């Protein structure tokens, strides 16, 4: 019961009880299904964009500048006559990989810090707690700007800075999860069975504490993608000719009053990715808690 309580509390106090709380995705199973379909579409766009897009993302056609959406050009064309749909499809790879890499980096840092804090005893815990507190004073976007000032604008500094910016949040959760698992009856049982401290930590505490990380990662990807694309939008990430979604939005800004489609679709993709990952993350969260209840 302790485990269920604590892990559920970590993941969301409101979602742990049998009485359903307010969540649109809770009852509507269609949410996760649509999310998976959309993410599958993205996977195809990453693996083989030419299956979906009939034009090259950089193919310029001045005669077709700023054409409205039509059957030939589903999302219209941009100022250079490039097909916006194709650019959006080809843009999936750079846009998503930045967000994914940043999330992975953030999680990696968080697992190290969180595990040290959760397992290293009071002094280490207190020190890491202070460090995390200090890092919280740096909003992710500002940290990224500081990073770009030091190392210049590049995709690498973008990934590192967004990853660093999201790490303290994850770290605090990893720590909480480890502390919760540490005090659970099955860990106690493992000690009673005579297992050594390291065996219990390595085989029982860590694997159980890491379980919700998949959910955390899914929920966090959307924000990482938003941050990363924001920096591209400010001209501090992917360079403009590349079909990265944030950069596309920065590119099309001056045409907003005449050609809304240049701005609408790349932005909508970012929103859909975030919605899909959030929806899927929440679904996984509930599944995870459901399993906890059965055990």
């Amino acid at each position, binding site marked *: 019961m302790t485990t269920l309580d604590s892990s559920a509390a970590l993941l969301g106090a*409101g979602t742990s009880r049998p009485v359903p709380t307010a969540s*649109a995705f809770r009852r509507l199973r269609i949410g996760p299904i649509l999310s998976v379909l959309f993410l599958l579409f993205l996977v195809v766009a990453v693996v083989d964009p030419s299956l979906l897009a009939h034009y090259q993302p950089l193919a310029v056609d001045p005669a077709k500048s700023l054409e409205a959406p039509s059957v030939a050009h589903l999302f219209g064309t941009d100022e250079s006559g490039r097909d916006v749909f194709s650019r959006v499809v080809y843009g999936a790879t750079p846009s998503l990989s930045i967000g994914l890499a940043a999330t992975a980096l953030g999680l990696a840092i968080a697992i190290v810090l969180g595990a040290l804090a959760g397992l290293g005893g009071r002094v280490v815990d207190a020190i890491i707690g202070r460090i995390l507190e200090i890092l919280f004073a*740096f909003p992710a976007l500002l940290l990224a700007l500081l990073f770009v000032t030091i190392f210049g604008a590049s995709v690498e500094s973008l990934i590192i800075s967004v990853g660093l910016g999201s790490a303290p949040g994850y770290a605090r959760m990893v720590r*909480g999860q480890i502390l919760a698992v540490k005090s659970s009856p099955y860990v106690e049982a493992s000690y009673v069975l005579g297992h050594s401290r390291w065996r219990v930590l390595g085989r029982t505490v860590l694997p159980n504490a890491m379980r919700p990380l998949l959910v955390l990662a899914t929920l966090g990807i959307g924000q990482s993608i938003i941050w990363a694309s924001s920096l591209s939008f400010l001209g501090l990430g992917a360079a403009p000719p590349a079909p990265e979604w944030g950069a596309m939005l920065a590119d099309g800004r001056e045409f907003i009053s005449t050609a809304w489609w240049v701005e609408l679709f790349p*932005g909508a993709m970012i929103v859909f990715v975030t919605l899909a990952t959030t929806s899927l993350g929440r679904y996984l969260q509930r599944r995870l808690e459901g399993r906890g209840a059965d055990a």
Partner: protein
Amino acid sequence: MTTVSTGSVSFEDDLDSDFTTTGARTSHSQRGWRRLVRTVGSGILVLWGAATVTFIAINAMPGNPAVAMAGGAASHPSKAVIAAVTREYGFDQSLFVQYLLYLLRLIRGNFGFSSSQKMPVADVIAESIWPTVLLTASALLLAWILAIASCLLTVRRGRFATSLGSGLEVLSAALPQYWLGILLLEIFAFSLGWIPATGGDGAVGLILPAFTLAIPLAGFMSQVTRDEFDLALEQPFVISARARGMSDWGVRLRHVLRHAVLPGLTLSGWALGSLISGAVIVETLYSRNGLGGVLLVGVTQQDMPLTVGVTLIVALVYVVANVVVDALYVVVDPRLRSR
């Protein structure tokens, strides 16, 4: 060990880890004012830590740090300027002396010289911070109004309203600020023509930028508040209040809301810091004067003293806001006043 979840990773962990959900909060009532003192103490620690981080950042800059602090190699600083900067920052002395000099300068309010604005960083910040403070403060207020309205109107108001409310929250939290800003501009400034696209620094010019910053934040705030609101509605005091004959709205406004705003309140300090960095996007988009726009110019020109100065100011805002939030806690939660 409980943390209130928002469904968003970046926000939920920001809650003070010792602040627990409704059921277990009573054990913390003894803390009362003591936690305020603790917050001030840890705030000073955070400021010192932030100063240390920026010191490390300056030293992490590739190349000669003196050249970097004088505006970077691209600005071709003269030998005399480099020598002056070296002397000022103590770059020719040991790292420890540099560090002490750095802290001493910060305590005196000396943030160095901004190469992109051609004046001291402290003056740049003093000149441009007020439009940004006005913008972020209105955005925070607006976000709270939207979040509370959404919770009051849709939590446990039947399946449709509930789904609509939480659906809208998830959607708003997923909106990138720059895209939302573009859409609002297109709809309200260009298509409908209700609001001029560049409304200047007056109240009309504040409307669209404030909404652009507030809507995604409101999505997050509202998710946190909603979970807590929902929990509070199950508490025995709700039943007893209803049994006393209090109306549904009365219960929600007078009892439930008090509980529900607490976790969101904790987030406010963090939110203010992140709103200031969000102002970089919004001020650029709406061509508003302010710290954000100045910062962006500084970043693109590798103006290290300016970026560091703004970072430290944001850390200061974060710390001050957290102290204010702690004081507000005592106002909102009477149990904290007991001792």
